[in-house]
């Protein structure tokens, strides 16, 4: 999962002068936006939409660029060995537990956090991430290649410690080759080495009231439980096929994942949840519900060798987290299996 807090990003200004394609996209987006605006005004005036849906905070709107990079469509995947690798990478991305069975310890797939197959702007799209690596990451204090970065996803977000192999794919594994082939395809003609509009999850400043899991529990019940379940364990269909991902507990991301931090989860939630209702939650609600979700126990941080307190000092000082803190009388971070 992407980690916006590590690399502060300014997302309001396109990083390069608009190209002809970008101008076309801007015009199309402006026209589309106008239509949506008219429909929206009509809907409100006719009482179709109650006021609650109109609470998008002005700051979030202002921070949203009007046009984003467009990755190539699936139909543009070429034939031949290149295309085969891209398709294998896409399959890994969409259905990680079945396609990287030995290296995933939970039911999550890449696409759970990188929406629309890694194409969706502001859901940490792959077309943006691709050109930023190699990159120095404070998380491990060294230059990370894209392979290193994906290894981190397996280690933390896919909780590889609970997989049959006990860890992420080893360096040089075909899983990395194929996933990178897919990312490289999505980033076709994207700039390299610059922050692109729509990359990462747009940061949401901590609101005046801070964050509170008790308030967050109410936000969760009203906005999230329909899909993720009252108990946050997601839902599977009658065959056991995942429909909605679990948000805590043994089948979710572990304590080392970026998403386990309240600021990162709030950023993801604010722009992307509920699915299809961008902007429904206020900044305050996004922070509160992120705090609620991340105040539950989840698989242990695989970097922990000594005590939770010790690991909290070594690895959990970078963001807002309940790791190593006592919530409701319980020390969080011990892990669940």
């Amino acid at each position: 999962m992407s980690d916006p807090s590590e690399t502060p990003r300014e997302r309001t200004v396109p990083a390069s002068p608009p190209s002809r394609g970008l101008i076309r996209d801007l015009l199309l987006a402006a026209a589309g936006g106008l239509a949506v605006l008219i429909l929206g005004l009509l809907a409100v005036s006719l009482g179709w939409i109650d006021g609650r849906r109109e609470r998008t905070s002005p700051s979030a709107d202002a921070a949203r660029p009007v046009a984003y990079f467009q990755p190539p469509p699936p139909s543009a995947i070429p034939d031949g060995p290149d295309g085969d690798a891209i398709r294998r990478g896409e399959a890994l991305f969409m259905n990680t537990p079945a396609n990287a069975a030995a290296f995933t310890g939970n039911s999550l797939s890449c696409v759970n956090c990188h929406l629309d197959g890694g194409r969706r702007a502001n859901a940490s799209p792959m077309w943006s991430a691709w050109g930023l690596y190699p990159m120095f990451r404070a998380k491990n204090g060294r230059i990370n290649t894209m392979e290193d970065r994906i290894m981190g996803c397996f280690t933390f977000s896919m909780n590889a410690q609970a997989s049959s192999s006990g860890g992420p794919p080893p360096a040089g594994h075909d899983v990395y080759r194929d996933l990178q082939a897919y990312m490289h395809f999505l980033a076709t003609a994207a700039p390299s080495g610059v922050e692109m509009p729509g990359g990462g999850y747009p940061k949401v400043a901590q609101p005046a009231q801070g964050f509170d899991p008790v308030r967050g529990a109410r936000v969760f019940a009203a906005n999230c439980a329909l899909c993720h379940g009252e108990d946050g364990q997601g839902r599977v269909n009658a065959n056991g096929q995942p429909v909605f991902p679990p948000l805590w507990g043994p089948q979710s991301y572990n304590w080392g994942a970026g998403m386990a931090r309240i600021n990162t989860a709030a950023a993801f939630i604010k722009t992307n949840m509920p699915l299809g209702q961008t902007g429904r939650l206020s900044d305050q609600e996004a922070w509160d519900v992120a705090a609620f979700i991340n105040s539950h126990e989840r698989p242990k941080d695989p970097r922990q060798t000594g005590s939770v307190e010790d690991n909290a000092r070594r690895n959990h000082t970078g963001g807002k987290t309940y790791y190593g803190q006592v919530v409701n009388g319980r020390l969080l971070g011990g892990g669940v299996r």
Partner: protein
Amino acid sequence: MEKISGGEAVFAAACSTCHQPNGVGVRGAVPPLNDPAFMEPAVLTAVILRGVEGPIRVGRETFDGAMPGFAGQLTDQDIANVASYVRRTWGGADAGVDPGAVARARAQAAGAGPWRGGRDLTRVSPALLPQPAWSGPAPLPVDGAVLALINEGRGEALACSSCHGPQGQGGDPIPRLAGLPADYIAAQLDAFAAGRRRNDQMSGVARALGPTERRALADYYSRLAAPSTATPSLDGDRALGERLALRGDWSRDIPACFACHGPSGFGGGPRLPALAAQHPGYTAAQLSAWASGQRTGDPGGLMGEVAGRLSEQDRRAIADYLAGLPSSPATVPRNRR
């Protein structure tokens, strides 16, 4: 039945949401398509025509779910094409499957329900052994008073079966009820009774029923499995419907239908009904009602917002696509975690 061209296209349209585009299935839920014993033409044909419910051993793993039969959705040629595609792509076979053999198997299968687990299938090929036994669900106790309401009615409470059919299969534009979640059906009856959902006939029926009766009827219909009787009839663009159902259109902020209503439209939770095999006139009318605000009461207003982003062409496309799917096979939602 509408003929779909080549085996790959049939697979993408009919098989890939469960077995996945690369045939690997879903870990712990949907079998992979690489077990040689299942790649025999007679076995493949038998499974595709009738479906399977109950435990089945594939490779070294046992799966306990349900696959619908496609006898009503696919022609002999379609089945021959997709079985040939599966054999050649993942079964290592050169020889295809002959449509004539499919026609003979279809004649034999006429009227038969799904195969009862892997053990039943060994009658087609002993090479499938060993297979787990099928014990079947416990027979459901059905209250005579509930059956009387369904078949005879009582005053204002018209007999349910007079419109929704003896098996709850519906008949356009009357909706199919069989296999919808009990919570969802009960909530609709309550809404009709309270005037929150508007339909003259159903309001009268629901008001004439007591709360306990409404719940009992909801439980009854949720456990019914009935083959599809829906037929695409709105001249919708089914390829467009398939795209919107499987991938959505994020350029218009439209999430995939199946992102919430579950893979293959088999339902996504107690308040997220199955869509597969629903009658197209009903589906399209409901999408219009959501979009216009005539139908409300969806948690958070999500369905109203998403429906409002669909064009009239989109609605017909989606409704016709869903009408062409086999019905949800398993009627009692399970949550295994």
